[in-house]
């Protein structure tokens, strides 16, 4: 069963990666990143059951990841709101400050 879960996680991760690279709306980019994090969580939990040495540690790590992801989503959305207030848009391709 493990390869199936891992493949599933890989699919999710790659879709998330594609979304993060392509989507213009910053909120969707954030969402895509959440998707990638979820894929990681799936891996962690799958290994916690089907790994060579099954243990609850994987689930604990998944919990930590979820917590961090929640914090990240909160801060990310806050930044987006601030950005929107400052620039009037959340389209990623309109921010090219790094060019200078």
């Amino acid at each position, binding site marked *: 069963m493990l390869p199936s879960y891992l493949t599933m996680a890989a699919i999710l991760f790659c879709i998330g990666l594609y979304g993060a690279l392509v989507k213009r709306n910053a909120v969707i*980019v954030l969402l895509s990143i959440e998707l990638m994090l979820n894929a990681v969580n799936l891996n962690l939990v799958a290994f916690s059951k089907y790994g060579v040495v099954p243990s609850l540690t994987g689930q604990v790590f998944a919990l930590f990841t979820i917590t961090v992801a929640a914090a990240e989503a909160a801060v990310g959305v806050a930044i987006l709101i601030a950005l929107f207030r400052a620039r009037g848009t959340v389209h990623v391709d309109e921010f090219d400050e*790094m060019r200078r």
Partner: protein
Amino acid sequence: MDSFTQTAWLIPLFPFAAFLLLTALGRGYRRAGVMIGSIGSLLALIMSLLVLFERLDPNAVDYSNSYKWIDLGDYTLKVGFEVTNLNALMLVIVTAVSFLVNVYSAGYMKKDERITVFYGYVALFTFAMLGLVLSDNMLVFYIFWELVGVCSFLLVGFWYARPAARAAAKKAFIVTRIGDAGLLLGIIVLFWYMPGHALDFSSIHNVFNEGQSGAITMTITTSIALLLFMGVIGKSGQFPLHVWLPDAMEGPTPISALIHAATMVAAGVFLLARTFDIFEASAAAMHTVAYFGGFTAIFAATVALAQNDIKRILAYSTISQLGYMVMAMGLGSMTGGMFHLFTHAFFKALLFLAAGSVIHAVHTQNIHEMGGLGSKMRITAWTFGIGALSLSGIPPFSGFWSKDAILGTALDEDPFLFAIGLAAAFCTVLYMSRLFFIVFTGKSRVRQPNEVRESGLAMAIPMVVLAVLSVVAGFVETPWNGWLGNWLTGGGEEVHANGFAIVASIAVGVLGIYVGWLMYGRAYREQSPAAARMPWLVQLLERQYYVNEFYNVVIVGTVRWIGKLLHAFDEHVIGGAVRLVGFTAVAGGRVMTRLNNGQTQTYGLTAVIGLVVIIAAIVGRRFW
């Protein structure tokens, strides 16, 4: 008692010091420059004479001294000097002509703004030539050999503002280089096969002397001799590398006298004399040398018949006389060759200086724009006449004795070469009488006749001195007194006294003068009646047998073609590669600029692609 001989190494240092001083002083000190140059060569001359007087003692032994230069494992490269009778004679020739030319140039080059530079070059040349004469091994000899070549290059191109001078300088340098390459190869082969890799002349003498020549096989000896002879061909203007010498007349006339008549071009003959044992050990090489010399003698003499530039006539005459010397060497008569070198140095230098005096007066080198100068330039005319008579081999002038020594040898050794030599002698007399009669007799055809006057003392005195030398120098070796031969070779050479040769040579001389007078002396003609009947022959001679044109087409053309090919290769292949690299860099830069657009997603994409590539590289290693 050999104190002067032991300090002979000082001789080249006088002109060298003069050169350094002149270079340091710069162009400002015109008079001082002349003095320094002249004093440098005067001191060298005095030293050389002292050395020569010591050598005149019949008990004098050859002296050589050398210092360690480079240690190469077991082999030690030495640099040193050697004084033999041969060297002593050359020392005197070089320093004497050099000093006289220095004095002469004070008048001739008076108005040139780079006179100090000129004197510096002359001093450097004198230094190099004396170093060449004194060197005790082939390697040092070769170094100085190249150094005189450089000085010749500098001095031929002295008036570098003229394109012709530049071209002539380049031609002189490049053409002699062909011969020098052969000489270098010869030295390398010699170094390889000599026992103990010795390159000094005394070892060469010991190895190749008769009886001990088993150390090196015949084939190798012949090839060494022929390779060395290539150097001689280049430096001494022998056919087929003679083409540079007439062009070298673009240099100042004193230079033509010093370098291209008396000393540097004689260096080839001197090399033959120095390595005479190698040549003597190989009959094939000797024959080659003799026939090259003989051919050059007649070839250049005929060309000189039809030239119209006074210096070119003399240049071809020099080539021809050098051919005589080389022929004498090839016939086994080192005495004859060196003797002719000795006398030729004086009378040819004299001729050039006198020609310079003429050019100085009339500002042209075309003999048809001269004429009737004898009455206005008495000293020049007289000294030139003496030189011409000496060159023509009229007794009792020096040229007669030396030419007779060569012709006598030729008659004994190879009648065919004797005939060639005699024919060349006839041509020599003919072109000299043509030159003399057209320039100094008849009506004046000078553009500004009023400006023609005798040159000053500085120019006249060297000419007179050389004229005296040209008269008396021949008596050191006469058919009944082989003093020079005994002194040079230690009595190892028989004197070729041959009544027939003497009579023939005098007859040819007189006949030549008579014919010359008939053709050119009685009345000036642009062209002699004989020449008018054979315009193609005149054309052929005037264009110097089309040797230059032939080289232009065959050698220069080929080299150009190869050059074009290589250039195309360079342009399209190498240059293309370079441009491709440049284009790649620029294109890469453009792509990078596009990538660097400040957008996070592009950066992210780049990072992901990089990650994929890295993983692919790591994983991919599994598959091969």
